[in-house]
């Protein structure tokens, strides 16, 4: 099945993207964000969950958490290209909230079949969710999960759970007698303990979550099948978050370079600053082109979705590192301080860089597709 030339990104998608941009800019401009999340600078600070729950409720009411729920399941069934546009704006605002986790859970649940209908209804009803798939080593393969399920209850610890301090539900992968299952868990259920991690990124929270004989609903007995269907969308949205954040880094650094003078010239006069910033711009455009291609594949050409999403996130992960490094370097001394906003994005991007596989990991998976199959 061929993709539409325009990625299927039409008027409705453009309106959603604009609305998101306005919402974030109006409600949490970067100075307010800094006040919210960077209040405590102590490097020895413990875990924190800093967000505006009131704004999150508004986002839920705007329907953004239901965007990816299939129409058949009572959701809006928006194409992924449209959702990607919104997530670009989320990244551009470095907005602290569990939207990515909730969307990610939606993709997985939508791939689970009928047994996940009630869980999708939860999301439709405004519950926030996140994925709990990862072991202590941060293995990007969910088959390495430390969780085990037996007799309808879940035990073990899930690590690197994103925004765990902000969600109502957890979607966990666990070994079962029959293989690997997916479980829908109430974050407030007895036996669930959320141990916040002390992390560098100030715009997200992260935790390891321990389960002690927790009652859980099995939504799929074949977790890998569902996850493999969902991963391309998950990777694509992370690439969108990174691309949006990188665009903020680019524009902010360019603005500084156009204002700040050294040797009687604006910094941007110097090719040592100008050319790498152009390379950041090119990197962003490559990622955007790749991620819309991947999103469009998720919508219309699923057999290519994995391949294209690997490309998008591989490029995005590298971009996250490069754009971050350059944003601090070209802000000079001021960029090295806590008061300069660039550190918020720097830290978010370094976090994103390894979230669902880094550049090398995605290239290695892509190579398996392109090099190890028949020509």
């Amino acid at each position, binding site marked *: 099945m*061929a*993709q*539409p*030339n*325009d*990625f299927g*990104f*039409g*008027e409705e*998608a*453009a309106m959603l993207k604009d609305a998101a941009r306005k919402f974030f800019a109006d409600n949490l401009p970067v100075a307010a964000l800094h006040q919210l999340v960077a209040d405590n600078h102590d490097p020895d600070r413990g875990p924190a969950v800093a967000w505006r729950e009131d704004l999150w409720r508004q986002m839920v009411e705007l329907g953004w958490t239901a965007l990816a729920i299939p129409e058949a399941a009572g959701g809006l069934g928006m194409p992924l290209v449209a959702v990607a546009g919104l997530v670009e704006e989320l990244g551009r605002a470095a907005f602290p909230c569990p939207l990515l986790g909730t969307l990610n859970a939606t993709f997985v649940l939508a791939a689970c079949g009928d047994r996940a209908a009630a869980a999708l209804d939860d999301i439709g009803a405004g519950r926030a969710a996140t994925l709990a798939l990862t072991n202590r080593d941060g293995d990007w393969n969910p088959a390495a999960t430390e969780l085990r399920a037996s007799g309808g209850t879940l035990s073990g610890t899930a690590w690197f759970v994103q925004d765990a301090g902000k969600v109502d539900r957890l979607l966990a992968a666990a070994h079962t007698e029959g293989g690997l299952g997916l479980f829908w868990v109430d974050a407030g259920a007895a036996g669930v303990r959320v141990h916040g991690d002390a992390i560098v990124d100030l715009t997200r929270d992260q935790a390891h979550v321990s389960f002690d004989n927790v009652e859980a609903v099995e939504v799929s007995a074949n977790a890998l099948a569902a996850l493999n269907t969902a991963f391309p969308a998950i990777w694509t949205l992370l690439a969108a978050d990174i691309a949006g954040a990188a*665009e903020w880094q*680019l524009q902010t650094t*360019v603005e500084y*370079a*156009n204002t700040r003078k050294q040797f009687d*010239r*604006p910094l*941007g*006069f*110097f*090719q040592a600053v*100008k*050319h790498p*910033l*152009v*390379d950041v*711009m*090119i990197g962003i*455009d*490559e*990622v*955007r*082109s*790749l991620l*819309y*291609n991947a999103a469009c594949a998720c919508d219309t050409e699923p057999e290519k979705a994995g391949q*294209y999403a690997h*490309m998008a996130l*591989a*490029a995005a992960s590298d971009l996250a590192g490069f754009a971050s490094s350059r944003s601090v370097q070209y802000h000079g001394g001021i960029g090295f301080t806590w008061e300069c906003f660039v550190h918020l994005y720097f830290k978010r991007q370094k976090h994103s860089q390894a979230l669902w596989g880094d550049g*090398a990991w995605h*290239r*290695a998976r*892509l*190579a398996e597709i*392109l*090099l*190890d199959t028949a*020509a």
Partner: protein
Amino acid sequence: MSASARKDTPEQAEFRQYCRQWLAQHKPGEPPVRLPQSPLEIMTEPQLHYLQAWQKSAYEAGLIGCDYPQEVGGGGRGDCQRIANQEMIAARTPFLPNVIGLGMAAPTVFYHGQEELKRRLLPRLFSGEDIWCQGFSEPGAGSDLASVQTFAERRGDKWVINGHKVWTSLAHFAEWMILLLRTDRSHKYDGLSYFVVPIRAALGKGVTVRPLIKITGETGFNEVIFEDLEVDDSYRLDELGKGWQVAMTTLLHERSAGELQTPRAGGMKSGATHDTNSRSLIELARTTRRGEGRAADDPVLRDRIMRAVIREKAFEQTLRRSRNQALLDHPMRLPLQNKLLASELAQEVADTALAVAGAAGSLYLADDNAPAGGQWPMAYMNSFGMTIAAGTSEVQRNILGERVLGMSKSK
């Protein structure tokens, strides 16, 4: 129905249908000689004649110059060249030999030439009967195009030209040259003017064309020396001193960022037995033995090959995205990247191929054991032509930083 056909207007759909039928019947047969990899490397008369014949038949069928008005030899259609191009590429026709004429000279003459000149020059340009070349670069004016020194001095109705142009592809076959020169030494930009010059007619009478040899050993481009060449004032494009503005029209179209679409054909297998894109790179990695396995099994090479593959896909998708207004932040942000991306991609792909080839990357065209017939070292060397010519990569980054990001000029 193909994706590109989906949005045709009724008129376009009809034209597409016509092109497809015509091509099915009239696509030229196998060339009698080995063809070069690009029109800029046409070296022999038999190559040229075969390709000129093809261009002429395509023009006469209405597949070239479609969007230009009929008065200048065009088809008088709106937004149809695009369609002819798609169909010619799909039909894997040979490329068009008059590539500088079609892509750079035609729009420039069209926008800046006098009416009489357009009517006289464009039909033979479209038909390929007159091959065109471009006289911009000079030994002292590479990236800094505005510093050209070739000078035209006014003598009555005539201009007398002296100077030295370099890197003029196709000059050895060209009838006409588009020529940027200086008519006033006291102003850098406003001292430039722009002419069309009948160089073939003037060979030995004020014009000398000498081949230059590329780093690869190939010939194919030239230096052109003007000694007291007289040309008529009617060959001037636009006003005196407006040469820089006219040149911008040329460069805009060279970068495919202009209004008028350039006719494009191609896809027929050229004489080069191997392409040098990432697909061929993968093929090389699959067929090259490394240690116990294939080069394609080496994880570090795999990583590097995938980087090139991803970059190629990104380039392709950036071209696609540049056609969806809703996904653009700035009108020139993507179009101005094209040349830089294409040239650096080609360089990366070829350099990666040399790493894949390993010791065998030393083998050149005449060596029977050379991987891919020795095309990869040649492609790597030729990629520097791309990163240097038509604005070096450094100049491209200046342009992007200044025009798109609004940064201060680096000069």
